[in-house]
C-alpha cells in the first residue's frame, strides 16, 4: 500500500456515510497524487459523490433494479446473476491495487471477496466464504459498533486510519454546483428570503422513527427562533418527510419554507450552504451542512451518539440526552422514547441563537442552565483526532470519564500515543478488567502449548485436543466480554482479530494465535492499570468463574 495507483472505495448505501468518506478520499489523493480513485455507490446516492472532491470516477450500482429483478417473474434471478457477474468482471478488469470497503455488511464482504483486490481493508471474504475484516482499524471500528458506549473515535477517523491517511482535511467536503446554488437562491428569493434574513434550517426527518424529534417540538422551536432572531425556517427532509413537513409548515405559517421531498441532493447542499444554522438529529443532511460549512446544532438521542457519528469539523454544537439507556440498541424498538421529550425546544433555541452569534460563552452558560443535556463543542485533539468538549462548568458524568479513559487507551494501542491514566480513577471498571487477567493468562499458556505441539508436528490428536481447550477458553473470554461492559470492546476486537487469521501452515497459525493471546493479556493489564491506577486502587476483583457459574 506504499503508493497505490488505482483505488476502489466501496460505500454502497448511505448518504451521510458517503460524505463522511470525503476527508479520507481527499487525504488519499493528497498522499498519492497520481492515484486514480473510484467510488462504488448505489445509484440513488451517486449525486453525493459528484460533489465530493478528488473522486475520479463514480461507479453506480443499481440495487433498486437488482431488487426488482429478484422480486420479478421467472428469469429475474438469472438476469440478476449475470448483471453481478458482469459487474465483478468489469471491476476486476480495473486492476485496483487498494480496496477500501466502508460498508459493514456481509453482502459487501462477498462483493469485495469476489473482486479480490490486494490489499483490501474492511469487510471482505475468505476464499472459502467466511467474513474477514481486513485491517486492525477496520476491526476496531466493527468492534466499536457493537460496544458503542466505549466508542473511542469518530467514524471519519476510523475511515482515515483504515486507509492509512495520516493527515487529511479536518472537515467533510462537498462542492456545491453553481447551478444548484442558483436554483437555491431562486427558491429562497421566491419565498421572500433576503440575503440578510436569518435562515435556520430544520432537518425534520431521519432514517428511523426513533431518531426523529417530535413535530410539536419543531413547531415550538420555530416560533421561538422567529421571536428571538426574526428567523425564517427552512424545512428539509426526503420524500417520506412530506407529511411532517406539511404539518410543521401549517403550524408555522409564512415563517416556514417547506422544501421536504422537493430538493435534489445538490440543491439540498446549496440550501444548507445558504442557511445560518441547521438544527438536525443525527442524519445525512447534518453531514451535508458540515461539508458546506454551515454551523450545526445537532440533537443526539435514541441510538445516536455524538462521539462516533457527530459532526466531523470544529465548532459545531451537539446536544446529547444523557439517559441511562442511551444509546438504544439498534435491534430494540423503544416503547417510550422519553429522551426526545428531555430535549426541550427552549434549550435548542438557546443553542441556535448562541451558535448563530458564535458566542461560546453564552453556549457554556446555556449548558449550565440545561443540565439534563450534555452540551458539546466539536473539535480535534492534540493528535488530530475528532473530539467533543463538554461545555459549561458541570463535571463530566461517569460515562464520559470512562469513554475518555478508553479513548486514551486506544490511542496508545493503535497509534502509540502516550498513555494517560483515568482521572478520576474508575475502580469498578478496573476491577472488571482485572477479573479477566487469570483467564487471559491461562489462555496464553494454552496458546503456547498449542504452538509447541504445532511446531513439533506428529501428534495430531494431542494438537487437536489442545486447540479444543483453547477454543473453550476463548468461549469463556467472549462470555466474559458479553457480561462485563468494560472488557467488551477489547474482547470483541480480539474476536475479530482471531477470525481474521489466515493461512494454511498450522505452525504459523499457532504462532499468530499465541501472539494475539499475548497481546490481549498485555492490553488487559494495561487497560486495567489505566482505568484504576495501582496507587489509588480501591475496587474489588470480579473473578471469572464466580460470576458465570450459572452459565457454565
Amino acid at each position, binding site marked *: 500500500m506504499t503508493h497505490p495507483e488505482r483505488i476502489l472505495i466501496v460505500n454502497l448505501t448511505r448518504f451521510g456515510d458517503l460524505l463522511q468518506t470525503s476527508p479520507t478520499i481527499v487525504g488519499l489523493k493528497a498522499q498519492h497524487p497520481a492515484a486514480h480513485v473510484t467510488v462504488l455507490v448505489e445509484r440513488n446516492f451517486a449525486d453525493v459523490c459528484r460533489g465530493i472532491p478528488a473522486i475520479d470516477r463514480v461507479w453506480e450500482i443499481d*440495487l433498486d433494479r437488482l*431488487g426488482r429483478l*429478484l422480486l420479478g417473474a421467472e428469469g429475474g*434471478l438469472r438476469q440478476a446473476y449475470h448483471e*453481478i*457477474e458482469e459487474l465483478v468482471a468489469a471491476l476486476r478488469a480495473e486492476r485496483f491495487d487498494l480496496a477500501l470497503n466502508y460498508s459493514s455488511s456481509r453482502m459487501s464482504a462477498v462483493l469485495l471477496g469476489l473482486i479480490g483486490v490486494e490489499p483490501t481493508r474492511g469487510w471482505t471474504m475468505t476464499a472459502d466464504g467466511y467474513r474477514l475484516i481486513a485491517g486492525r482499524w477496520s476491526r476496531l471500528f466493527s468492534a466499536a459498533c457493537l460496544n458503542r458506549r466505549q466508542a473511542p473515535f469518530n467514524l471519519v477517523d476510523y475511515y482515515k486510519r483504515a486507509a492509512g491517511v495520516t493527515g487529511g482535511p479536518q472537515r467533510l467536503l462537498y462542492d456545491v454546483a453553481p447551478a444548484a446554488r442558483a436554483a437555491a437562491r431562486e427558491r429562497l428569493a421566491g419565498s421572500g428570503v433576503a440575503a440578510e434574513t436569518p435562515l435556520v434550517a430544520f432537518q425534520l426527518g431521519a432514517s428511523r422513527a426513533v431518531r426523529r424529534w417530535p413535530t410539536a417540538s419543531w413547531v415550538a422551536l420555530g416560533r421561538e427562533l422567529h421571536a428571538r432572531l426574526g428567523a425564517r425556517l427552512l424545512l428539509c427532509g426526503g420524500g417520506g418527510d412530506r407529511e411532517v413537513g406539511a404539518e410543521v409548515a401549517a403550524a408555522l405559517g409564512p415563517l416556514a419554507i417547506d422544501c421536504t421531498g422537493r430538493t435534489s441532493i445538490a440543491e439540498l447542499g446549496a440550501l444548507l450552504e445558504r442557511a445560518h444554522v441547521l438544527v438536525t438529529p443525527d442524519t445525512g443532511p447534518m453531514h451535508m451542512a458540515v461539508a458546506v460549512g454551515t454551523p450545526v446544532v445537532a440533537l443526539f438521542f435514541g441510538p445516536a451518539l455524538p462521539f462516533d457519528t457527530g459532526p466531523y469539523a470544529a465548532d459545531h454544537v451537539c446536544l446529547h440526552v444523557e439517559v441511562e439507556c442511551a444509546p438504544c440498541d439498534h435491534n430494540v424498538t423503544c416503547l417510550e422514547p422519553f429522551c426526545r421529550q428531555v430535549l426541550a425546544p427552549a434549550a435548542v433555541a438557546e443553542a441556535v441563537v448562541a451558535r448563530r452569534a458564535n458566542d461560546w460563552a453564552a453556549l457554556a452558560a446555556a449548558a449550565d442552565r440545561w443540565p439534563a443535556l450534555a452540551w458539546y463543542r466539536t473539535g480535534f485533539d492534540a493528535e488530530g483526532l475528532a473530539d467533543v468538549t463538554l461545555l459549561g462548568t458541570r463535571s463530566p458524568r461517569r460515562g464520559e470519564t470512562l469513554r475518555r479513559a478508553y479513548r486514551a487507551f486506544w490511542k496508545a494501542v493503535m497509534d502509540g500515543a502516550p498513555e494517560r491514566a483515568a482521572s478520576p480513577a474508575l475502580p469498578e471498571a478496573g476491577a472488571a478488567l482485572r477479573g479477566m487477567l487469570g483467564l487471559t493468562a491461562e489462555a496464553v499458556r494454552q496458546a503456547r502449548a498449542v504452538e509447541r505441539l504445532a511446531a513439533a508436528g506428529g501428534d495430531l490428536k494431542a494438537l487437536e485436543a489442545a486447540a479444543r481447550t483453547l477454543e473453550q477458553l476463548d468461549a469463556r473470554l467472549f462470555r466474559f466480554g458479553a457480561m462485563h461492559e468494560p472488557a467488551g470492546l477489547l474482547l470483541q476486537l480480539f474476536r475479530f482479530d482471531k477470525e481474521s487469521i489466515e493461512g494454511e501452515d498450522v505452525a504459523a497459525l499457532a504462532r499468530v494465535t499465541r501472539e494475539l493471546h499475548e497481546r490481549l493479556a498485555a492490553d488487559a493489564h494495561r487497560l486495567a492499570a489505566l482505568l484504576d491506577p495501582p496507587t489509588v486502587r480501591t475496587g474489588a476483583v470480579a473473578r471469572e468463574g464466580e460470576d458465570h457459574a450459572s452459565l457454565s
Partner: protein
Amino acid sequence: MTDHLEANLRALAARDPARAARVAAAAKVGTLAAAVSGEPTLVADGVLLHSRQDPRAEAARWAATQCAGAADPKATAVVFGFGLGYHVEALAARWPARVVIVEPDDGLLRAAFAARDLTALLGRVELAPAAIDRADIAGWGAAVLMRHAPSLLREGTALRGLQERAAGLTALRELRLRVLVVSPLGGGSHPIAGYCARALAELGHTVRLLDLAPFEGGMGAAAQFTPRRRAQRLVEEAYVRFLAAGVLAAVDAFDPDLVLALAQAPLDAAALAEVGRRGAVRAFWFVEDHRLFPYWRDVIGGYDYFCTIQETFLAEAAALTAGRVCYLPCAADPGIHRPLELTPAERETFGAPVAFVGAGYRNRRLSYVPLLDLGLRIWGTQWEGAGQLLSALQRDGARISTEDAVRIFNATSVNLNLHSSTWIDGVDPRGDFVNPRTFELAAAGAFQLVDRRALLPALLVPDVEVATFAAAGELRERVRYYLAHPDERAAIAAAGRGRVLAEHTYRHRMETLLATVCAHEYERLRSRPRPATAADVARLEAGTPLGRLLGQLPPATPFTLDGLARELLERKGDLSDPEAVLLFLHQFDELYVREARA
C-alpha cells in the same frame, strides 16, 4: 418348439444366467394359438396378448406410435410387458438406443421362449430384474416408458405395480416436491410424522413438519369445561376445527404439492376439501388398526391417497373412497433406531436379560407374568394395577423417550414384542399388520421375539430375520432358549437389521408413497407453478460457469436463492465465482428484498 426354448435360454444366460435358470424352471403360462398370418399368438389370464390376424403388423404399428411419441431418441426405451416379443422386435429395429424389457412373469417368458426364436432379440435388448429398484431406474438414465397394454391388462401379475412404480420414480427424478407433513397431537403415530419428514427431506424434497404436539394439552383439557360427554364432544369438535384452520393457514403459507397427514391428524372433511381446492394432493397414512380405530371411515373420503398398514383391508377401504388406497407397512428410521455403543453404566441402567418397552395392554400383562423370574424389566406407561408385574416396572411407569427406548433395545438380550390386543389374552390369531417396534428393534440391531402376524413373513423372514412365537404359552420357553443361545440371537438380529436397512426404512416408504402419487399425478404436479430447477437452468446456461455449477447440484434443486443457498452451504472448500455471485445475491435478498416479498 423345444429347440427355440433351449436356444433362447442360452441367449438369455449369456447376459443373465440366474434369470435364465428361473425361466427354465418356471411353468409355462397361457395358451398358444395360431394367428391368420401363421404366427403364434398367446392368451394369458384371459387376455389376448397379440393380434389373431397379424401379430407382426400390429407390432410394427405399436412401435411406430411409440417412436413418434418419444421426444428423446437417445433415451433408454423401457417396455413394460414382453408377450411373445413381437412389439419388442419391432421397436428394437427402429429405436437407436438401449431397450430394456420389464417382465416379471418367468412363466410368460418361458411360453414366449418356447414359441418363438428370440435369440437375436435377446442379444439386442436387456431384461430388467423381476423387482425394479431405484438404482435400476437411475441406471436407465433418460428413459421413455412404453406400455404394452395387453400385458398390463392381465390380472394378478406384478407388472402393473412395477410399471406404476417405475413411472412414479422416473417422474420423481424431475420433481422436487413441497410436502407438508401434519402430525397428530400425540400418541404412537406422532413420532412417525417426524420420521416421515426426515425421510422426505433426505429424498431431496422441501418439507415442512407441522408438529401439533403443543396443542395436545388443549384437547385433553376439554373435559374441564363440563362433565357432560356430549358437551365435551362439541368442544372437542370445535377444537379440531380450530386446529384444521391452523393447518389450512400453514397450507396457504407453504403452498405444498402434497399434504401428508399421519393417523389422528386433526383434519376434518371441510378442511380437507379446502386443501384440495388449493391444489395440493392429500395423503393419509393410517398407521393404526382399522378394527380398533373406526374413525378412518369418516376421513377416508377426504383423501386422494389412503395408505394403510393392513394389506388385508385394502378392498374394504377402497369401497369407501374415490381416491386410491395402498398398502404401506410401518418402518424404522435408521438415524434414530440404530446400534449404540453403550457404557457399562448405561448397560447397568438400561439392560436386562429380557425386557419390554411399551404400554400395558391386557394381553401383555397376562403373557409377561411367567417371565418374571427370567430377569424381566418393563418400561412404559399404562401399567397401573398390573399386580406382580409392577415389581419389574421401571421408572414407576413413566413415559420412555425414543432415545432411551433405543438404549434399552441395545442393552437387552431378548426384547419382547407382543402386538397389543384388547380382546385376546395372548397372541391375536387375526393379527395382520406389523407394528413399528418390530422394525425399530431390527434396525437397532437388537434381538426380539415377536408374535406371528399375517403380514410379517413378507416383510421379515420368521426365525431367520426375526424370532417369533405363536402363542403366549410358548413365550417362556422361547425366551429361555434364546437366552441360552447368544450366537443365534446375534445372527438373527444382524439378518433383521440388514433387511430393514435394505427395504423397510421410512425413506423406502416415502419413496413408495411419492412414486405412487407421481405415477398418477405427474402432469398435475408438473403443471403447478414452481420455480425452475437447477437442471432447467443448467440446460439454458450450458457451457457457462453458472451452467457448470448448476450441473453439479441435484437436478431438482429449485432455482431460487434459498434453494440454491441450501445446496451451496453443503459444499466444502473454496467458493467458485458463480457460488460467490449467488451468495452475494442471497445476502442482498436477505437485506433488502425479503421484507418486500413477504
